[in-house]
């Protein structure tokens, strides 16, 4: 008995011998990688806060509500940029969300099998177009077309709304919103497609069994089930819309003003930083631009928190977004 007891390896030696050491190393490495992302975001926020110190002390809350952007007299206010960012992103969502979700529904439910893969490839190709190229296309192709056809049409039919009154130049908040919509359609479509594909077939079959029509099956069994995931896809698209810089700055007209008309030029937070950063010669100016970056980071974080809170109110099962 004693012989066999002393021949048994101890518990820790067993663990070592069985290779669990490698597992814990793997665990620590992946934990390190995950934490490093968090650390990177924290460092970015830290640097932005540090760089905007001068402007924060000088302007305080006034920065968020003032419309005065005057580098010569060193008066800075971010309100027109916040307005431009929020409005252009909202327009982009209004255009892109129905388009993307409808495309995703078509691709998963209604399209013949042979067309699904090629169509998906085309949509993903749109995501691969660089932002600058899209901006160039926007200036030379999209804007002339918009100012010749779409904008006058909107003004004629919906001109009673103050949104569609005012002179038409071409570069405008509406043009900015449209180009952001083009950029976020691929993302929302891809993620929505994945979400809709993961809806269990059982749901659809159950709906059919109850006598639902094609549309009712899609509405009741698929879309309702996937609500949470689709919402997550929209938030992903919104995140991209808020930060989009180059394409927007080329078509939005770069004029810091708050107007009712969608045909008027506007300015976004990301555009002003891209345009003015390299020539900011004095400390207050540079610091004000850092603070714009901080505001953009803050807006993005707030939108994401708000979205997560909204997600929690969507009770029920549903497919979680694979973010």
């Amino acid at each position, binding site marked *: 008995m004693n012989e066999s007891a002393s021949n048994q390896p101890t518990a820790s030696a067993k663990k070592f011998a069985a290779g669990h050491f490698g597992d814990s190393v793997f665990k620590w490495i992946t934990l390190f990688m995950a934490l490093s992302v968090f650390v990177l975001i924290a460092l970015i926020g830290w640097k932005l806060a540090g760089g905007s110190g001068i402007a924060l002390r000088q302007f305080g809350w006034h920065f968020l509500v003032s419309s*005065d*952007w*005057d*580098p*010569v*007299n060193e008066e800075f206010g971010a309100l027109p940029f916040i307005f431009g960012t929020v409005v252009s992103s909202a327009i982009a969502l209004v255009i892109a969300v129905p388009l993307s979700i409808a495309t995703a529904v078509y691709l998963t439910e209604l399209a013949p099998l042979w067309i699904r893969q090629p169509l998906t490839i085309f949509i993903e190709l749109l995501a691969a177009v660089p932002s600058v190229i899209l901006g160039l296309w926007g*200036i*030379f192709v999209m*804007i*002339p077309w918009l100012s010749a056809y779409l904008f006058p049409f909107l003004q004629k039919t919906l001109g009673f709304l103050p949104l569609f009154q005012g*002179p038409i*130049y*071409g*570069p405008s908040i509406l043009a900015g919103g449209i180009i952001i919509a083009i950029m976020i359609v691929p993302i929302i479509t891809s993620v929505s497609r994945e979400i809709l594909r993961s809806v269990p077939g059982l749901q659809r079959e159950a709906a059919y069994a109850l006598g639902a029509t094609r549309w009712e099956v899609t509405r009741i069994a698929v879309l309702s089930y996937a609500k949470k995931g689709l919402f997550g896809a929209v938030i992903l698209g919104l995140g991209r819309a808020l930060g989009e810089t180059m394409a927007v*700055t*080329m078509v939005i*007209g*770069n*004029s*810091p*003003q708050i*107007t009712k008309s969608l045909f*008027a*030029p506007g*300015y976004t937070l990301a*555009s002003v930083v*891209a*345009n*003015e950063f*390299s*020539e*900011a*010669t*004095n400390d207050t*100016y540079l610091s004000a631009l850092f603070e714009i970056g901080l505001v953009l980071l803050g807006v993005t974080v707030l939108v994401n928190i708000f979205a997560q809170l909204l997600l929690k109110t969507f009770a029920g099962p549903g497919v979680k977004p694979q973010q």
Partner: protein
Amino acid sequence: MKKIILSILCCLFAATIISHAQLINGAGSSFDYPAFTKWFEAYGQVDSTVHFNYQSIGSGAGQQQLLKQTVNFGASDAPMSDANLAKAPGKILHIPVVAGGVAITYNLPDNPKLKLDSDTIANLYLGNITKWNDPKIAALNPSVNLPDLPVIPVHRSDGSGTSFIFTDYLSSVNPAWADTVGKGTSVKWPAGIGLGAKGSEGVSGQVRQLPGAVGYVELAYADKNKMPFADVKNASGNFISPAPDSVSAALATATIPDDFRFSMVNAPGDKAYPIAGASWVLVYQQQNDSKRGKKLVDFLKWAVTEGQKLSPALDYAPLPDNVQSRELDLIGTIKY
């Protein structure tokens, strides 16, 4: 595998050879970037032991890099402010190396040649003149059939030396502009008037697309892209076309103080083009590395004399002789 090792060894060998050459780093304005590119290439024939590296990141960034001493020279379209000079660890010299003009371009049917003066240009950008057939423009252009189009002024949305020269000109000739807008690489353009576009290519793109638009671009840009530009009335009352010789004429008659921080807008000469400005190389008077300092001084001496012969081909105005000799004296004070 052997081929890869061999090619890596060759690259390292080449790198060691190149590293024996002196490397001089500069950064700053994009206005004189074409001039620097041409000069570095031409100077390579004169002295092949020195290598240059220039980053066209903007005047403001160029000044910042020089203050942090991460580059050996900076290039800026606006002179450094007193505040920035006070922050520098040593005395910084301003050496003008190019002068260029800013052309006023426009989009009107039939492409007429317009004559404009300082008040008209200021009022176009202030929003006081809203249509092209306004009596003030018609008075300067009696033979032109001006259309009933709304005026759309286009400005630079990015901070730029071209904007600096343009707003400097408007501030010095129009008190209303000086009070409300002022001058700078980035200014608060009158709200709701016109559009901003990024870069000279943005401004020219907008002007070409929008009938009734007016914009300002570097002369070199307007020439290369065959854009129409206006004749502007100068301080002597003559309507002058922007060209390298009219910009040189402005430089010859401008008042240049000893520290070379000057403005040459609205220069008094007969043939001077009023909307013109210089671009400076910024260097420390006391160079830290004596070998590199000597190479830099030799290059600067070449650039303000021999290099000026290459300027007109790039649509810059060459420095006149009296300015060249004053600059050689200034460069002579650099110690290494």
